[in-house]
């Protein structure tokens, strides 16, 4: 395991003994060796190459703090890749919208869509430029990246949904998003019911088992009405129409 600091994020890169086949949007469920902390922590795959996989981690609590400080060379105890990733098709024009650490799944997705000859624009919302360190510059080299900062320190001043709207939401064959629930709900509202047909979102629910066994990571879905699917196994990626946005808003 190797570590790299990028602004407020830490990139952890693991050597993978075996071939590691994963789709963008899939995640790994990582054990954090903090006494008193009992659940694993889910992290999107950020970069997957032959022989290695990496995660992009932001310190928000005890588990992520442990991950950000874990000694280089240690082996992480991970389950995965888990869940259902984004479904992708060749060509097309794609809007990818990330909030905060949502950039992890979105970056992996952008890489793959470009491999499939897609035309991709990535919208990334963060608090301020400090948060992302040099990361946005580096990623901007990989694909067309448009930054929105809440504090106006770089790129568009405001939230990422506004930026996306300002860029014209039309003309995208696919819309993909990963970020906080509020951002996803805002996006769903912004693109309307017609846009939902082109939307796929990655839901960051709290998880226990990570494999569909505990039903802890329930996401409200439209069918059956009042029902739920699991973020860990049925998701974390759902289509815009699968979800019951009224119950997600609430």
């Amino acid at each position: 395991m190797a570590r790299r600091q990028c602004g407020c994020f830490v990139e952890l890169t693991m050597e993978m003994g075996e071939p590691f086949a994963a789709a963008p949007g899939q995640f790994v469920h990582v054990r954090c060796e903090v006494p008193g902390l009992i659940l694993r922590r889910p992290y999107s795959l950020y970069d997957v190459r032959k022989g290695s996989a990496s995660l992009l981690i932001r310190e928000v609590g005890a588990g992520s703090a442990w991950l950000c400080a874990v000694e280089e060379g240690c082996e992480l105890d991970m389950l995965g890749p888990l869940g259902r990733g984004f479904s992708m098709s060749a060509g097309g024009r794609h809007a990818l919208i990330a909030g905060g650490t949502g950039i992890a799944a979105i970056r992996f997705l952008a890489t793959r869509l470009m491999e499939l000859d897609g035309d991709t624009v990535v919208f990334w919302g963060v608090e301020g430029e400090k948060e992302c360190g040099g990361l946005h510059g580096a990623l901007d080299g990989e694909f067309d990246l448009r930054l929105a900062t809440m504090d106006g320190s770089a790129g568009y001043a405001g939230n990422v949904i506004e930026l996306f709207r300002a860029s014209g939401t039309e003309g995208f064959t696919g819309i993909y998003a990963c970020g906080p629930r509020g951002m996803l709900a805002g996006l769903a509202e912004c693109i309307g019911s017609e846009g939902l047909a082109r939307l796929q979102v990655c839901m960051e629910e709290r998880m226990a088992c990570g494999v569909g066994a505990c039903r802890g990571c329930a996401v409200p879905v439209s069918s059956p009405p009042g029902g739920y699917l699991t973020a860990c196994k049925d998701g974390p990626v759902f289509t815009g129409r699968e979800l019951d946005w009224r119950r997600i808003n609430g």
Partner: protein
Amino acid sequence: MAEDKRVDLGIELSGIRLRNPVLVCSGTYGNGREYAEWLELEALGGLMTKSVTLAPCPGNAPPRLWETPSGMLNSIGLENAGLERFLADELTWLSHLDLPVWVNVAGFSPEEYVEVAGEISRTGLAAALELNISCPNVKRGGIHFSHDAHEAAALVELVKAEIEIPLYVKLTPRCTDIAHTAAMVAAAGADGISMINTFPAMAVDIETASPRLGNVTGGLSGPAIHPIAVRMVWEVARAVDLPIIGMGGIWTWKDAVEMMMVGSDAVAVGTLNFADPAAPLGIVDGIAAFLERKGMDSVTELVDMVRGEDE
């Protein structure tokens, strides 16, 4: 693997042979299938299924999980696909394994309990039933029975009349005198006790002054409650003469041995499965090594080893 060792880890519970005394708790291992690709389920002592209700049950509003110091809250709310799909999709699949299965039954009325229990018994595919009279996450039904030892006993009698397989009753820790409840359900005909379910508990996001769980309250499980579970098993083992499957915060093989020493005949691992789905197998190995080190021939020697002041 433990089976190759000299020490005998096999036990018998209500006539059911288990290759070792380590089961997995209801609701923490799905119905086994979710883990089948990760490990060999048949190495477990037994499996207790997620609660089954008559009709499909959507479960509670999310969020359903919250982590607490050395513990977690859940408010799943009995989400399950209902009896029919359970029989078709899950129990049939499970029955092809060489693995004793306790089917956990829940309901919203005595009639529902009786119907579900009867159907499952009649399939002949379950080793035993576990009666969940104590789910803290359901408003109607569940919680009600366990609140009153008499009602719990009445339910046990009704269910017993409809089934041919052993009936284990799962006790809630939310009670004044768990030994009394255990004695009542024993008198009503229960074949065994499983204990304990989660503790009703709560957490709040102070930034928004709103509960962390969509259902407001949820059940506390994990190492935090282990010392309470140990005390309760100790009390029940002294009060009734039924087999006990002890659970509650078991995190290492030492916790499992401790649970047996205070009087449980077998143990079940719950929350720990989320941290490590293979942990139950490690616990089996740990118990075996302990028995060897202590020169014991059978795991049953551990049961009830602790003596109290008055004994």
